[in-house]
């Protein structure tokens, strides 16, 4: 049988999926054990024991200086920035994308600007943001907005223009005005696609968040990682990275489920 026709059963598929994780863990474990055997104070590859101790210290004990539970403070601060940034970007994407997608006059006017803006490397203008908006929350949120909004705008406009032309004619023969074409035809059909666009934008959004926090911040997941880097505290950095990854997975899956629940027609092949 050809390789392309060989499909794994349920159990095999699960085993095959888990295998790379197990291998990675084993390699890390072996390497860590060896280094710790050579030097019990080694910081580069901490063992499970050191990492759980670090997590316990960061998440479940008050910080001696500030009296805060640092990991939760960091998480809350980061998620707030991420949520604000991505939320504002999605809202902007919806408004600009719909206008660009439905109205040829607006498209002629705005589409070139959006395309140009989406080519600007966001990190290159981070200094400008710090200068203009200061070192506070606003500049970090703005970086996420500027980094993710133009691409989402283009995506939404693209999705709107992919709606069949027949629909656009049909709704006009039902007497719709331009506003109704947007609100009753384009908007409801683009919302599930916007959620998909947000899911894809979350990767870049995390990148911009951590970059901004690394440079100027007093709390946040990215700030903490870059802070403890000075002490080579891999026992904190590694759990933080895993924690960020977990958060990203959970957010992504929540959005996926919301999309399924809210738009049953979309996920059943109704588009």
């Amino acid at each position, binding site marked *: 049988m050809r390789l392309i026709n060989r499909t794994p059963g349920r159990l095999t598929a699960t085993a095959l999926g888990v295998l790379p994780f197990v291998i990675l863990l084993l390699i890390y474990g072996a390497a860590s054990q060896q280094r710790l055997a050579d030097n019990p104070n080694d910081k580069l590859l901490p063992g499970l024991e050191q990492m759980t101790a670090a997590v316990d210290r960061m998440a479940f004990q008050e910080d001696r200086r500030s009296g805060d539970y640092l990991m939760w403070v960091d998480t809350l601060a980061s998620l707030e920035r991420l949520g604000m940034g991505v939320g504002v970007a999605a809202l902007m994407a919806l408004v600009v994308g719909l206008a660009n997608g439905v109205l040829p006059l607006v498209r002629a006017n705005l589409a070139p600007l959006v395309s140009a803006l989406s080519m600007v490397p966001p990190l290159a203008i981070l200094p400008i943001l710090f200068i203009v908006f200061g070192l506070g929350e606003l500049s970090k949120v703005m970086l996420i907005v500027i980094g993710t909004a133009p691409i989402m705008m283009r995506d939404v406009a693209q999705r709107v223009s992919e709606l*069949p032309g*027949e*629909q656009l*004619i*049909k*709704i*006009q*023969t*039902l*007497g*719709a*005005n331009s*506003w*109704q074409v947007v*609100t*009753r*035809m384009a908007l*409801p*059909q683009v919302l599930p696609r916007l959620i998909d666009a947000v899911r894809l934008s979350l990767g870049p959004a995390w990148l911009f968040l951590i970059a901004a926090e690394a440079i100027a911040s007093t709390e946040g997941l990215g700030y903490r990682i870059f802070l403890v880097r000075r002490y080579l505290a891999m026992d904190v950095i590694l759990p933080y990275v895993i924690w960020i990854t977990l958060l990203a997975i959970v957010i992504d899956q929540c959005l996926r489920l919301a999309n399924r629940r809210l*738009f*049953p*027609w*979309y996920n*059943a*092949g*109704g*588009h």
Partner: protein
Amino acid sequence: MSFISVNKLWKEYGDQVVLENLNLEVEQGEFCTLVGASGCGKSTFLKMLLGQEVQTRGELLLEGDTFPAEPDRNRGIVFQRYSVFPHLTVRQNVLMGLELEQKPILGKLFGSARAEALEKVDDMLELVGLGPSANKWPHELSGGMQQRLAIAQSLIMRPRVLLLDEPFGALDPGIRKDMHELLLRLWREIGITIFMVTHDLHEGFYLGTRLLVFDKLRNDPHAPNAYGATITYDLPIGQTDEHLLRDIDQSVTNTARNQAA
């Protein structure tokens, strides 16, 4: 004055002449079927009736007035595909037109106004045989059911003209027959003026009151775009025979070959 009159109508795209010198008078309540080879302008003519295309020369009049240059609620359309809204249930699809008409800003009806409109919707769904599927999504319907829905969606607006662009082209032969019966029944009950484009000559011969054959009178094999098509046969249905059908079939097939060459 006729309901629809077409005077010396031409349609050109650059060098390409699609329609030349089209003349036609249609009375209210007629059911015209438009047949012809692909590229002979029958769909283009339908688009002009719809307001999606504008003629290059000549006149296209609805009760003596120029046709509006964009689609409006007086002219319903059913395409071969994609005529219904996938994000609305069957009922909501038909309700949409009434909502758009009554609520210019919100575009939605609530309370008793909605209940009243829904009664009309349910009557219409019953009429096209979609009563039991009222709460389904369009993707749960078969192709024929989707076309029934598209027809219901248009008819609830009581348009003056119903335009059908190869509405049954993608359906199985058996289903197509059911749809023919449905369409004839609706036309008799509502008395609406219908234009239907079809590829299928037999369908054109069977349905409606009038058959319009779009064909090219002149063919230049070296410049297939130089001459446009016009209406070569304008026949009342019922007075047609097999012999004529063969003649038309022959002519249309020849044109199609020339187009392809």
